[in-house]
């Protein structure tokens, strides 16, 4: 087990280094000089050089990379070109929107998808199953931003239950914040819930054909009991992988949804960073997203190895 963890940990670190180099290089290619952007055309060369040094833009490419990467490790993400505040501060503010939104969507998706998938699998081939297959097929095909627009018209304009956009902050209490995040979370969750329901269904169908289910039935369990006690538990492994992977999908999908609802989250921060050429912000937020994906994958791998010793040998 220790060897497994060590080897996974090594590949985790290597992935992070490779990813950071890739992101750094992409950003280096972006045309436009942030200093001339910030100071305007009439800036004196001395003032420009001073700002360049302050922003950590001086020196060779290797030096700049090392400066940025070592800063990231220490939690120092640099200073935003446009906001003139530490990027870490900006990111921390935005995380209070993006992380709750992602978790909200993940919770919605999981709580809807699992029962629906279980229902379809245990009614295989019957009308309920076909209804689920049809609905999930459509759910996967709907662009989440379009669904978001429909939700706004239905539940913010026609029946004004939720705000159409914006975020009041958490200072006013839990409920106003949650209310503002509800429609975005539903829009974000729909495609993921459809995928998850399908995975749950096919995993459970696979499990229900196993001998131990027949044994469970033979020893006197009802069909429902057999499904619940032996089927669902064993079918959860592939489902959990997908839930792990979806975390990153949701975080990235939020970029679009946050723009639909004008939510001040990480997605809007990246978007604004790109349009304002605030590259240090873009660089840091993208790195943070990639880091969280790699970390979640690592955690899922580890959780498996703990649950199933057969998987440890894979390393």
């Amino acid at each position, binding site marked *: 087990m220790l060897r497994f963890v060590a080897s996974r940990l090594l590949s985790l670190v290597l992935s992070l280094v490779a990813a950071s180099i890739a992101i750094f290089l992409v950003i280096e290619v972006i045309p436009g000089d942030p200093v001339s952007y910030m100071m305007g055309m009439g800036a004196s060369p001395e003032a420009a050089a001073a700002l360049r040094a302050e922003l950590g833009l001086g020196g060779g490419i290797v030096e700049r990379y090392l400066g940025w990467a070592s800063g990231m490790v220490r939690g120092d993400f640099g200073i935003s070109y446009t906001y003139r505040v530490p990027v870490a501060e900006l990111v921390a503010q935005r995380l209070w929107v993006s992380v709750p939104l992602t978790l909200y969507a993940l919770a919605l998706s999981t709580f809807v998808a699992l029962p629906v998938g279980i229902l379809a699998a245990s009614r295989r081939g019957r009308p309920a199953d076909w209804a689920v297959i049809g609905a999930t097929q*459509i759910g996967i095909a*709907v662009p989440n931003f379009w669904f978001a627009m429909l939700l706004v018209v239905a539940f913010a304009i026609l029946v004004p239950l939720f705000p159409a956009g914006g975020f009041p902050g958490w200072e006013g209490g839990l409920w106003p914040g949650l209310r503002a995040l509800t429609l975005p979370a539903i829009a974000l969750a729909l495609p993921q819930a459809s995928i998850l329901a399908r995975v749950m269904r*096919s995993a459970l169908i696979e499990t229900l054909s196993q001998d131990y289910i027949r044994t469970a039935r033979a020893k006197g369990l009802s069909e429902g009991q057999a499904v619940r006690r032996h089927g669902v538990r064993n079918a959860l492994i592939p489902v959990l992988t997908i839930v792990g992977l979806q975390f990153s999908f949701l975080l*990235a999908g939020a970029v679009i949804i946050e723009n639909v609802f004008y939510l001040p989250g990480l997605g809007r921060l990246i978007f604004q960073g790109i349009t304002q050429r605030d590259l240090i912000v873009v660089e840091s937020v993208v790195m943070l997203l990639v880091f969280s994906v790699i970390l979640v994958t690592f955690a899922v791998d580890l959780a498996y190895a703990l649950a199933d010793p057969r998987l440890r040998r894979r390393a």
Partner: protein
Amino acid sequence: MRVPVQLGVGAALTAVFALAALVSFVWTPHDVTQIAVSQKLQAPGGGYLFGTDHLGRDVLSLLMAGARTSIAVALVAVGIGAGIGVPLGLLAAAGRGRLLDEVVMRGNDLIFAFPSLVIAILITAVLGPSAINAIIAIGIFNIPVFARVARGGALSIWPRDFIMAARAAGKGAARISAEHILPNIANLLIVQATIQFSLGILAEAALSYIGLGAQPPVPSWGRMLAEAQTYFYADPRLAVLPGLAIVLTVLGLNLMGDGLRDMLDPRLRRDAL
């Protein structure tokens, strides 16, 4: 061979939109670049089957030309992904367990770790927003998908007897991959291509929606939706129609992919996923 129902439905849906896209090259009911503000926001009927948009352009014509953009972007992106990914996957399988295989697969894992949409946004921001750059951004993320499918498929073919025979006949790994492995994994690749095609259409729509895809005057479904957002309450038709076009195209491709998989490889039939 029985043709699955979903394949029929999917192929029919896809054909409608592919046909609309093809026809739009030579004919649309009205000129999509022609702005006639006096004709703006016309209700359906009276020479405009689906009415006009906020600039007086014919919505049906825009939808047809938009189909062209969506399909072209997704198709070329699939081409890039398959064109680079499949050879890489075959190469990795041929050099199984060796350094090459390891490098290709780790590279793949790395691309998978990037949230594709965010990187697509980044790439289009670096290169400038345009349909071509959207193709590149979407295409890059198709590469590891095809490489993985090709490698997995190829690994299951390599131990077969007929490959042994080909080796005995003196064929090299590259030639075996092209002549014997590739035809035997074509099924898998076609199914994957259909799935990536539909994902490509969704990605293109998302990029155009936030203004990083096709630029005016090139019509695109994503941008139609973005423009319709302001008029949504006054005239929901403008936002509903392009959305439906996206949903039906993606649905058609997904159904087609599922149906093809069932038909081409009954062993893989698992009803879902």
